[in-house]
């Protein structure tokens, strides 16, 4: 049995000649929220479908909750819950019927289901709508019901495939809040795919970025952000800024200073720590500071850097041939 909640080794999933997943190695700790980022068609959903036992691996190996997805899919299914990209619901059932059937299929005791459905209804704030046909639900309600259906049996590991795509900001924040609670209070391992970098930054302890079926970067959001560059302080002053460069460069923790007209672009190891000394130094130099902003790299920068690099490299290779 693996000590990891999810582990893959050189996982491959092929459709004809196309490798949708091409040698993915993952190690997700128990109790972790792991974010899986990537552009459309990168292989995120295919990886999730393999891990959820809907697709068999074409190569490599994957274990979920300690069980091989190819050899022991039944054991995996008992331990996972999943809300896939499209809410998988029957529009003619009511929410209550859907949750009750889920409970029956997971072998939960019949007498426990009424209370469980009430709990889940409260959890997703759909108690009043549970007896309505699902076809009458809004997109956000369907997403939340889909999440509840994935949680009926208290899974050890929850897969969420783009859980907030198409949701309004309020519903998105609510989903984030519940994901955090499920992780913190129930200790659930959560494997989350998303296109929203902010979502990964907000929720995930670690993030893997997949592009063209391969993991191109992995780490904590902070580590990934720092991997693409330093924090940047932008100072706009009255008049030419060129003479201020050496003054700022002399400060500790400053990597580089570039002057462009009235603007100074200052790269620093730790922007938050450096911004105050920069302001003081500018003031002592007699500069009239009009604007001082700190910009730290975001996961967007990481994502763009990595995927653009990849594409450019591929293009170069193509040209070289």
């Amino acid at each position, binding site marked *: 049995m693996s000590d990891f909640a999810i582990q893959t080794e050189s996982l491959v999933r092929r459709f004809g000649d196309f490798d949708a997943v091409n040698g993915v190695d993952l190690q997700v700790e128990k109790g972790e929220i792991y974010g899986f980022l990537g552009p459309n068609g990168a292989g995120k959903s295919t990886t999730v479908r393999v891990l*959820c*036992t*809907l*697709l*068999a691996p074409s190569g490599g190996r994957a274990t979920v909750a300690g069980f091989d997805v190819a050899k022991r*899919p*039944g054991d995996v*299914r*008992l*331990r*996972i819950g*999943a809300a*896939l990209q*499209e*809410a*998988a*619901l*029957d*529009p*003619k*059932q009511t929410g209550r*019927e859907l949750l009750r*059937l*889920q409970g*029956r*299929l*997971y*072998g*939960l*005791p019949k007498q*426990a289901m009424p*209370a*469980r459905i009430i*709990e*889940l209804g*409260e*959890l*997703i*704030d759909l108690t009043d709508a549970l007896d309505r*046909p699902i076809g009458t639900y809004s997109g956000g309600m369907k997403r*939340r019901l889909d999440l509840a*259906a994935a949680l009926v*049996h*208290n*899974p050890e590991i929850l897969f969420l495939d783009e859980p907030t795509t198409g949701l309004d900001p309020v519903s998105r924040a*609510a*989903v984030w*809040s*519940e994901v955090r*609670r*499920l992780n913190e*209070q*129930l200790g659930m391992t959560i494997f989350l795919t998303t296109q929203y970098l902010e979502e990964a930054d907000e929720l995930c302890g670690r993030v893997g970025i997949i592009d063209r079926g391969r993991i191109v970067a992995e780490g904590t959001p902070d580590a990934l952000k720092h991997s693409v560059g330093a924090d940047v302080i932008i100072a706009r002053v009255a008049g030419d800024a060129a003479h201020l460069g050496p003054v700022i460069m002399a400060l500790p923790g400053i990597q580089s200073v570039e002057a462009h007209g009235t603007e100074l672009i200052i790269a620093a190891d730790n922007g938050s720590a450096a911004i105050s000394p920069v302001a003081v130094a500018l003031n002592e130099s007699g500069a009239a500071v009009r604007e001082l902003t700190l910009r730290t790299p975001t996961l967007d920068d990481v994502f763009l850097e990595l995927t653009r690099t990849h594409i450019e490299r591929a293009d170069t290779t193509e040209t070289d041939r």
Partner: protein
Amino acid sequence: MSTTDAGASPTDRAKTSSDSLRARPAGFAHDVASIAGRALRGVPRDLEAVTPPIFIALFFFIVNIATLERVTQSGASGFDYTAFQMPTAILLGVTGVSRAPALVLDVQNGYLDRLLMTPIRRLAILLGHMVADVTVAMALTLPILGLGFALGVRFETGVLGVVAFILLAALWSLTFAGFGYAIALKTGNPAAVNSTFLLFFPFLFLTTSYVPRSQLSGWLDTVASFNPATYLLEGFRSLVSSGWAWDDLGKAMLAIAVLGSISMTMCFGALRGRTKRR
């Protein structure tokens, strides 16, 4: 999501009262019953799936009797055309009625994937639908039988014959449903499933639907001799008019078995293809 309740959050309550709930395999019979229950609950919500067949069956039952009764009864004394037409009406009512259109929607909207991620046995998904189909088919025979009784039809085989008649109709319906499920699972396309009604015509009209076999001539008689529906109709009619004619009943069962073995092979093969995680 509710966070406004006083005291413990919903997740807190979920943790305290449901923490002990753990998934386990529910058992094959339980899985079949669960799927059948869902499929049956769906029938009143999909009345358009069962209303037209029963309307068509009752309509043609009455119209055919009014159109052909005098012609057919004039040639043979004691021939009861109403009793003769009732099995035809039953076939019109139950042939092609199934939950296959609902299953194809499950394929399309991803609900089948949700089922496949549970510990359910794959076979139970199809068998559950089929249990529902048999139940629906038996229910659909009742209004047709009721109309037949109202028009004076009596069973030579008594109450047991009526039961056998209903079971035979349900088995035939299931046999035909197999084609619908095969297409649903193979294609995942509702239009393709709807096209199974094309199969309906040769089976129901190139046979003794309107006149006895002795009145068929030429190519139609030859074709009818290869049509399983011919033997099914003879089995039905024997229960109504002749008593327990085991030869006719045996042929009817054989016809169902032959056609059923083809349709079931196709639909269970399609299920395997749909769920094998290629």
